[in-house]
């Protein structure tokens, strides 16, 4: 079997499994998985920049929130239905990402981290500052009636699961396609050695900028979907914490792998959910897990699998 076939088989198998789980999972885990798939899209978006292009951003909550508020504001102010609202979210994410990329990509390394962090912080404060429209930290509810898409009620558990699944599947396929494409290969080349990529004649800045826009738009898609599927838009999702999360998920799952973001999100979600049954200081367990993983599985779960067993993993 060629590597390509194996890739199709593995990722197709995961999608088939997720589709099948819809019919067997108990209600609680069914709901969780829908949530995890949406968040995994966020992590996949993050991974395009961090895992494949080598750009460590600490401000991705800005994109997630841009999508969420782009969607939410379209619903709230323009009375948009879910489909156009979702597009509103994507446009907001792409525009914010293009603006941020154009400025922040003038810097590199730690300065890039800080610049993204600062812009995200300004974005968070702006949501609070314009509280008369955004309702600030308190946020607002997307009512059930506003979540009807062409007769489909997105607040229904089954519909929500399918919506999350479709989004997840589209993004996973897009990422797989991206990393196999010549464009994706240039991104990896930039990650490995920016100088060499430049000397080979590639326009590094342009490639990076497109990576930022793709990453930002995918993160925004997750934000918009999250608001739409779970009915709430709030400033918390723009805070620093939500910039750190995708970094953690991706690192846990394996940076620069297509499956890593999903596995990382899944792992972290259940780690917190199960440990909160044991102690209120459940983040302690998350902290210990992070330290242990960096000590013993530095490439993340899927990254370790790739370096030890399946070398063909994309």
């Amino acid at each position, binding site marked *: 079997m060629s590597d390509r076939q194996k890739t199709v088989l593995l990722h197709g198998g995961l999608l088939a499994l997720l589709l099948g789980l819809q019919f067997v999972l108990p209600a609680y885990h069914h709901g969780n998985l829908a949530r995890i798939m949406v968040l995994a899209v966020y992590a996949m978006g993050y991974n395009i920049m961090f895992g494949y292009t080598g750009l460590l951003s600490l401000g991705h909550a800005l994109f997630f929130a841009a999508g969420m508020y782009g969607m939410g504001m379209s619903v709230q102010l323009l009375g948009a239905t879910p489909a156009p609202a979702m597009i509103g979210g994507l446009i907001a994410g792409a525009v914010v990402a293009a603006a941020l990329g154009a400025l922040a990509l*003038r810097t590199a390394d*730690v300065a890039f981290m800080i*610049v993204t962090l*600062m812009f995200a*912080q*300004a974005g968070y404060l702006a949501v609070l500052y314009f509280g008369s429209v955004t309702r600030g930290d308190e946020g607002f509810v997307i009512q059930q009636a506003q979540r009807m898409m062409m007769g489909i009620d997105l607040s229904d558990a089954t519909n929500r699961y399918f919506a999350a699944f479709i989004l997840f599947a589209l993004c996973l396929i897009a990422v797989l396609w991206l990393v196999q494409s010549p464009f994706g290969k240039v991104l990896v080349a930039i990650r490995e050695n920016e100088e060499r990529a430049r000397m080979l004649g590639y326009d590094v800045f342009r490639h990076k900028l497109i990576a930022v826009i793709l990453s930002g738009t995918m993160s925004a898609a997750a934000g918009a979907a999250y608001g739409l599927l779970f009915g709430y838009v709030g400033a918390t999702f723009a805070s*620093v914490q939500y910039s750190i999360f995708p970094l953690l998920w991706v690192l846990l799952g394996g940076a620069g792998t297509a499956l890593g973001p999903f596995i990382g999100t899944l792992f972290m979600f259940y780690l917190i959910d199960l440990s909160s049954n044991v102690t*209120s200081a459940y983040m302690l367990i998350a*902290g210990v897990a992070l330290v242990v993983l*960096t000590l013993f599985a530095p490439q993340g779960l899927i990254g370790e699998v790739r370096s030890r067993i399946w070398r063909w993993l994309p």
Partner: protein
Amino acid sequence: MEIGPYILLASLEGAVTAAVLALTAVGLSLVFGVMRVVNVAHGEFFMLGAVLAWWVAQSVGGHPAVGFAAALVIAPLLVAAIAVVADMTVLKRIEYDPERTIVATIGILYIIQQVTLMTYGPDARPVEPPFNTRLAIPWFEFVDGKFQMYWPWGLSTTSYKLSVIAAAGVVLVGVWLMMARTKIGLLMRATQLDRETALAFGIPVERIYAIVFGMGAGLAALAAVLIVPIQQAHYLMGGDPLLLSFIVVIIGGLGSLPGTVLAAILIGLSDGIISVFFSPTLAKILATLLVALVLVFRPQGLFGVKTR
């Protein structure tokens, strides 16, 4: 309040912020400069300093000054010891790889924060200042072509706040003297310049790293002990100092101590003074954007030297 006295008051407040920030950021800058790693748990070392200060002051009892003096010595030392342990058990083992260090220190951040929550609890607790007199400040105005002194409403500071500024200054001079004049400072600078050569010359780089990491954490803790009589010890208080020190270290030029101190003064003062002219949240937004734009157009920092 008229604009003159207001700016003076905002500057005084900004100077206290700057003093504490300078200490915290110099700690982070030392670690970054010598070890080339980003310590995300730096803010938690700050928080630990404040919490331990409360604990020491509480256990000692007696006059507030006694407990505070004890805290000033014990808390930074304890925090430094904890940091050294973290360095030897975790950071050393991942060989100070920049990215893995970020994740590991995020893990350490959660561990410290949650252990504090489990033991110290979720409350904000005060430490009594050793002395605290309100000092009203006079202002001058021209009346009929003559200088006249008066006491504007609300224009004041406290003796404790002034002493925080002084104490931070003394400590910073001490750090500078240590780096410039002592053997350990020389070894640190050698390691910072070139780790490989330092190793080749028989400098115990690993021990230097442990000392630097401990010192960085100790400075953050010291800053926290100084501020805790003004603010309170709380298990989530580490977030802001971390963000601000990051900004300061970058603006000051990575690893440059004088740059870090200058940047701390700049950021501390501008935080105070910008709030004079804009509504508070807008001021925060503008200050944040300003920092970002400085970095975009001067990535080496305001006081850094361009390396490439």
